């Protein structure tokens, strides 16, 4: 493994710090336990949850494996409804286009709804640097923004904060009286953000799905901030990863409840919306312009890897994060990249530099809970294995490890050498050398008592 990269070392340090933070562990595990109970209830609304997963996997397989056709159909329909489509090869292309659009329209204030894709391209920083005030309106994202921190989890941005933390943040940054009543805190945010919605020039959202046959984007939320973001400002921009495509409107009859169930345990979130274009003649309000930015940014690289292509089926529900025992102990910030948890570990070496990000695929015990949790049946933990194999093939591994495995192979190919090796291992334990050789493991644990005989020896003797 490439512990040598700076990114990997930072991860190890951050993971070690968080793994011993018992308060953090308690907060996260309580939040996830609540989630687990809600999801268990939510799944009972399906006649057959496993079959629903298979249906969803089939819909996404069809789309991703014919992606060019669906992208072209989607674009045709968006244009026919009076919207605009911009194709962005890189994060920089997307940022520059949105900035140019904002400048052309004299945009001074932007309201944003929660979008991991806009996190991925670091859009907020670009807008702020250009002097455009950018306000996150999802409560969790708003709290992160005030604190100057990125979101902690792709679905629940402030899972790691207590009421008291949030109360303190509002008190310090907004000057509001110290209250840790969740309702009061929410109403503070509501009042502040209402003004921003009313005065913003542009609303920026992501999209949970992009529907090819009607040229619409679908947005899933509970608060109503996305609806306000695409209803009040005069321009609406949606940043959409190319993998968000689905073939037909009717597919949402499955995918909406699937996303809600795996995301929060709800049958449907409070608002499942569809946007097809700007305000039409006869409509009383709505933006004058609707812009879709279709983003590649490394997705075609992942698409080209036929073995791991199904990672593009991801509907960003967060179930794999919540299932992962590593995530539950180290939390979201430790990953130090936009997409966290198992899906993040799988896709990041494809979307970003493979050498810098392969360590995430090793930071797993391969337990497989993620694969079982995924509502669209992505083979997550096996892809971690694939990433490990790719990493070795590309020689990102340390030469000493390569040498070790060659030596180990040489030993395992001969019963004689294997037997000697086994005896040495047992001797090393008995003499106490193993304790320092296996130091990372023995740091917190006792080694087993070495047996007098191996099974081999017992069999020869006793049969």
């Amino acid at each position: 493994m490439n512990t040598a990269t700076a990114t990997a070392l930072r991860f190890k340090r951050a993971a070690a710090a968080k793994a011993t933070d018992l308060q953090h562990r308690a907060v996260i595990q309580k939040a996830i336990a609540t989630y687990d109970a809600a999801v268990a209830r939510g799944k009972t609304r399906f006649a057959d949850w496993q079959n629903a997963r298979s249906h969803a996997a089939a819909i996404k397989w069809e789309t991703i494996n014919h992606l060019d056709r669906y992208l072209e159909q989607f674009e045709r329909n968006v244009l026919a409804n009076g919207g605009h489509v911009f194709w962005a090869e890189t994060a920089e292309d997307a940022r520059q286009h949105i900035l140019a659009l904002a400048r052309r329209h004299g945009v001074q204030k932007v309201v944003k709804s929660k979008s991991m894709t806009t996190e991925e391209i670091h859009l907020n920083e670009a807008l702020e640097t250009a002097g455009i005030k950018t306000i996150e309106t999802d409560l969790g994202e708003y709290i992160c923004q005030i604190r100057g921190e990125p979101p902690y989890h792709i679905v629940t941005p402030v899972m790691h904060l207590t009421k008291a933390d949030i109360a303190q943040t509002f008190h310090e940054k907004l000057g509001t009286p110290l209250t840790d009543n969740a309702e009061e805190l929410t109403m503070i945010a509501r009042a502040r953000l209402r003004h921003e919605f009313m005065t913003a020039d542009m609303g920026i959202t992501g999209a949970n799905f992009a529907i090819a046959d009607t040229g619409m984007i679908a947005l899933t939320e509970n608060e109503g901030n996305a609806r306000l973001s695409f209803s009040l400002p005069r321009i609406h921009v949606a940043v959409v990863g190319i993998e968000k495509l689905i073939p037909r409107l009717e597919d949402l009859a499955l995918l909406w409840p699937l996303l809600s169930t795996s995301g929060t345990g709800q049958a449907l979130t409070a608002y499942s919306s569809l946007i097809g274009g700007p305000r039409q003649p006869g409509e009383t309000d709505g933006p004058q312009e609707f812009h879709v930015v279709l983003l590649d940014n490394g997705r075609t690289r992942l698409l080209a890897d036929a073995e791991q292509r199904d990672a593009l089926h991801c509907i960003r529900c967060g179930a794999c994060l919540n299932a992962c025992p590593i995530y539950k102990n180290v939390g979201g910030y430790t990953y130090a990249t936009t997409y966290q948890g198992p899906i993040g570990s799988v896709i990041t070496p494809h979307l970003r530099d493979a050498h810098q990000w392969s360590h995430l695929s090793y930071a797993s015990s391969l337990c497989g809970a993620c694969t079982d949790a995924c509502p669209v049946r992505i083979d997550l933990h096996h892809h971690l294995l694939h990433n490990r194999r790719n990493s070795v093939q590309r020689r990102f591994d340390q030469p000493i490890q390569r040498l070790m495995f060659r030596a180990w192979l040489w030993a395992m190919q001969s019963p004689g050498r294997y037997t000697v090796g086994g005896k040495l291992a047992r001797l090393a334990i008995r003499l106490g050398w193993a304790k320092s050789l296996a130091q990372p493991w023995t740091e917190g644990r006792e080694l087993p008592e070495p047996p007098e005989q191996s099974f081999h020896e017992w069999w020869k003797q006793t049969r």
Partner: protein
Amino acid sequence: MNPARENILARVQAALRAQAHRPAAPTTAPIFPPVTNPETRFREEFIALKGELIDGAEKLREFLKPFGRIATDDTQLVREVIGDGNAGPRDCDLGVTGCDCLIAQTGSVVVSTTSTGGRALSVLPPTHLVIARRDQIVPDLASAMALLRKRYDSRWPSALSVITGPSRTADIEKILVFGAHGPKRLVVYLGS
């Protein structure tokens, strides 16, 4: 014309030349249990979401009394039942709209820029009242999609929302709070 479009499509096509493993096919069994009594189911689901139901003109009059500033969309059923509004969406304390349909499976109200005139009236006001008819109840999401497809396939509204309960958030320690940004109260008047 930005070359990005051609570049991306070309990369997609090149990528798809390699075949990906196809997952096992699903069975044809229904994904959701059938909804046997749509109106009962709608009422149960809607109430469980903390929606409020109003039956009968008398109850509606009672409900409307405390609201001084009412904004309405200009749709027919709303005009018949409520009459004219006296405020706009931004300064009202009650927004009244029609709807496209009601979904029993999830207790949802479907609104669009056609059935409510615009986008903001069903999300800005602190309380949202929907004037609906019993015959607007459909069993499930699939039938709602079919209804919308039939009604709008030649000209889609620019925006639709499937509303499932009042606005809510659980971002703060998973504690449920209503009225995060959208209406704190969602009310449906079910006429005949």
